[in-house]
């Protein structure tokens, strides 16, 4: 990554009969591949850290070395002559030996194995393996399949002990939850006791497993590889925008796999992106328009629905407010804007949090984080909850020796909620040692993870103060709350010009998408609106408040584009047909009634908006792995609306004083309408838990696991306490979905204790 890195020195190596020149330090496996020669592997997976040399599938003969060598463990040396099974009888014998040993205990149940047809073991056995088995003894018989979690099943008999899954757990996710236990022939993969493998990244071990030992409980027996096709698209479960492919059979999504964009996701996915697809077939999925009738919502025909929509819009002209979701495609947002703003002058909208354009000057690929030497993370939210893959990039940076400083309520520098902006200002002023290192570094990265901060504007100002524009290895990222907030905001802005006017009397509230439909602010506004039109996927989000409901499509059912947190425009492709018409189809019909001419498909809409937003970048140019747009010249962002209040001081360190705690809400990764509709993801959702610092716990006589009551005038919730040694004092952290109506400051008391006191009183 670093611009200052010199051109690598080349060495010349011979594989079988071909000679290639590759950079010094290249692995033998990669070098051979560049010569078009395969060195077969099982355990070798460079993304999992240094080579293991365990499976011995990669044995090759190297001139001058008496013994066969594990090719995966070696790097090229000048003049090296390597012979693979293709030209070395010895190597061929070695590989056959390895396969024979692997198959000695393998059940050979390929016909009933999910991996069958796409199994490296099957393929390599076919190409390098022994014809018959010489093993006449009882194979190791082991329990199978056992649940590693509600999402993953483990078949120990199929396991070939390549240690890919355990290395992922230890070296990549760094969760240390999936391990090998016992020794020798009795070694097996396991978790502790019967605790589930509960990691936001657990699903990756399924893709890593070279055999059918680790399989998805959602996919098991769902399809055979020759009956499926894969559709390349991008994940819109968070702003990272991992590149995925959806496996389709008979018009249904059967699984989500990584498509490895080396700059974005490096082939990893989080479990939200991988396992939420079943929400497309949720019971309460809406497939037809609904209108409010005497008996609540009733299905109506599309003609009626569009007539009603038209009527509502004409009726409310001039007093319409639109609420958009950050999970819309840019095209859908643009189409809505063309109708509402262009056709009806409805310029006022509730837009999702958008990343400040000032950050375009400090753009980097996410992969640059891994090679950074210094990373500073600011903001109230744990990175993993906002943009999980970024958390993996940060971990890799740390493993590679980078200094990672986290200013957050539970960071390496415990910082009170809302303290991020102040830290930015301090660092910009540049007196501290850290500020000096940031100024000097050629490979420094800033990350804003949380609300506030002007969508990264404060971060941009800091980067500017540090002079990052002039250092190509330095950059800054904002982790927004929604997948495409920036794209939606840009589209809304670009669709028409016209002043946003404050609407006192809201005649019609148009709510587009599930994020908006689920948002408390939007619900609050709906209270004030005469009528509400909701576009959503689920009854659960429509019931009660909507006068007209139009069915929404899911991300896997859509074409279009989305802009990820790097500012990269990526392409969504329709993987399966939606159970209802695409939004763009009825939007173009509805628009026509207002004299607005809208293409009924994403490609057409994109063509229009690309002129405004993307310098006419043709859709095709985006390709399967989208390029990163160039950095833009720095433009100072608008200053903060109000000067951010200095973080309230934590309660005085007086033994007896038990003050109130500041409530720190966060939106967990595993939350939202889609997650809620996948029972298998239940165990990943946040426990009903309240985190507090040891000091605050002590003062209240609270220990981890105790039931506690969180109160703020009027409302209260019961939760379990978790004492978190990393959490800054004076704060109580609760997942949004468990915090209910609690206010900004709360009282926390131990329930048991309270009971005791009451008894004493009586």
């Amino acid at each position: 990554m670093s611009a200052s890195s010199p051109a690598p020195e080349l060495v010349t190596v011979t594989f079988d009969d071909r000679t290639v020149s590759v950079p010094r330090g290249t692995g033998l496996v990669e070098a051979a591949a560049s010569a078009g020669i395969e060195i077969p592997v099982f355990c070798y997976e460079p993304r999992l850290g240094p080579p293991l040399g365990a499976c011995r599938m990669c044995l090759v003969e190297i001139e001058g070395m008496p013994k066969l060598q594990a090719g995966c463990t070696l790097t090229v040396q000048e003049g090296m002559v390597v012979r693979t099974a293709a030209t070395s009888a010895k190597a061929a014998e070695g590989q056959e030996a390895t396969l024979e040993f692997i198959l000695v205990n393998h059940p050979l149940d390929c016909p009933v194995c999910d991996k069958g047809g796409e199994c490296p073991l099957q393929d390599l056995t076919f190409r390098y393996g022994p014809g018959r088995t010489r093993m006449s003894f009882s194979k190791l018989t082991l329990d199978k399949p056992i649940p590693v979690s509600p999402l993953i099943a483990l078949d120990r008999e199929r396991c070939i002990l390549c240690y890919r899954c355990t290395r992922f757990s230890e070296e990549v996710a760094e969760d240390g939850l999936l391990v090998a236990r016992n020794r020798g022939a009795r070694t097996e993969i396991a978790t502790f006791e019967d605790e589930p493998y509960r990691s936001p990244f657990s699903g990756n071990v399924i893709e890593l497993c070279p055999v059918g030992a680790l399989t998805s409980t959602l996919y098991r027996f769902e399809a055979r590889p020759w009956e499926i096709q894969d559709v390349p698209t991008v994940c819109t479960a968070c702003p990272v925008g991992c590149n995925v492919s959806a496996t389709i059979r008979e018009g249904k999504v059967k699984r989500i796999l990584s498509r490895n964009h080396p700059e974005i996701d490096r082939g990893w996915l989080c479990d939200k992106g991988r396992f939420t697809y079943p929400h497309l077939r949720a019971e309460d999925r809406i497939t037809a328009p609904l209108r409010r009738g005497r008996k609540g919502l009733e299905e109506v025909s599309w003609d009626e629905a569009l007539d009603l929509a038209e009527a509502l819009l004409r009726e409310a002209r001039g007093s319409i407010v639109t609420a958009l979701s950050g999970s819309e495609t840019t095209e859908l947002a643009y189409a809505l804007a063309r109708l509402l703003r262009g056709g009806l002058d409805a310029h006022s909208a509730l837009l999702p949090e958008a990343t400040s354009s000032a950050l375009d000057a400090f753009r980097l690929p996410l992969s640059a984080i891994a090679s950074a030497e210094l990373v500073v993370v600011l903001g109230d939210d744990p990175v993993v909850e906002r943009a999980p893959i970024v958390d993996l990039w940060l971990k890799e940076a740390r493993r590679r020796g980078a200094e990672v400083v986290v200013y957050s309520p539970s960071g390496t520098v415990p910082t009170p909620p809302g303290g991020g902006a102040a830290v930015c200002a301090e660092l910009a002023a540049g007196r501290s040692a850290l500020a000096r290192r940031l100024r000097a570094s050629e490979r420094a990265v800033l990350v804003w993870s949380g609300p506030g901060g002007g969508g990264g504007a404060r971060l941009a100002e800091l980067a500017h103060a540090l002079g990052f524009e002039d250092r190509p290895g330095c950059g800054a990222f904002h982790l927004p709350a929604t997948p495409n907030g920036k794209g939606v905001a840009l589209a809304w802005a670009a669709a028409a010009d016209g002043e946003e006017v404050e609407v006192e009397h809201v005649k019609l509230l148009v709510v587009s998408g599930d994020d908006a439909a689920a948002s408390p602010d939007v619900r609050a506004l709906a209270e004030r609106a005469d009528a509400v039109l909701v576009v959503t996927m689920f009854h659960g989000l429509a019931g009660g408040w909507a006068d007209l409901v139009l069915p929404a499509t899911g991300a896997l059912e859509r074409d279009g584009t989305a802009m990820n947190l790097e500012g990269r425009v990526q392409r969504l492709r329709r993987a399966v047909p939606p159970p209802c018409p695409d939004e763009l189809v009825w939007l173009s019909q509805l628009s026509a009634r207002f004299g607005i001419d809208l293409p009924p498909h994403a490609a057409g809409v994109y063509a229009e908006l690309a002129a405004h937003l993307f310098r006419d970048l043709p859709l095709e140019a985006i390709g399967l792995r989208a390029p990163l747009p160039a950095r833009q010249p720095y433009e100072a962002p608008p200053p903060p609306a109000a000067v951010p209040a200095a973080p309230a001081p934590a309660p005085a360190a007086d033994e007896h004083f038990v003050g109130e705690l500041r409530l720190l809400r966060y939106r967990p990764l595993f939350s939202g309408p889609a997650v809620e509709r996948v029972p298998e993801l239940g165990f990943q959702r946040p426990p009903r838990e309240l985190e507090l610092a040891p000091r605050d716990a002590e003062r209240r006589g609270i220990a981890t696991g105790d039931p506690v009551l969180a109160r703020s005038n009027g409302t209260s919730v019961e939760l379990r306490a978790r004492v978190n040694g990393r959490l800054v004092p004076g704060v109580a952290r609760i997942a949004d979905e468990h915090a209910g109506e609690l206010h900004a400051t709360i009282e926390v008391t131990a329930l048991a204790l309270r009971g005791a006191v009451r008894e004493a009183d009586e």
Partner: protein
Amino acid sequence: MNALAEEIRKLSGQYPERRSAILPALRLAQERHGGWLPPEALREVADALELTPAVCLSVASFYDQLHLEPPGRHLVEVCTNVSCALTGAQQVVEAFERELGTPAGTTSVDGAFTLGTVECLGGCGWATVVAIDNRHRLRVRAEDVPEIVEELRAGDA
């Protein structure tokens, strides 16, 4: 428990990296928990060393001297590797099976003894070597076994 955590932290002070203390820590936890490592013992070690219980299980299950099932009050381990075997280890094993009334690889019903056969204890020249509660008895012959068991039973009473 907290005392254990304290001692473990002391142990880890000997090493440049905390995790190196895992074997001594597990050994200590095993002593405190009556000769084996129940799940809570693994949790305690994990907390003290800032590891996960799964990692502690993974390490503990690799080593023969760390027990994941409860043994009897006395652990009797007879070396049956080549040198001991050549000079009568099997007779010693069988003598113990008779005296303790429990087959090798099991714990006596009264929970007093676990009888095991183990690999080379590093006393080949002083065969047969028998480790009793991890203390080695050298040159044990089948005819010595009744006396040894006697002594152990007496010690318990």
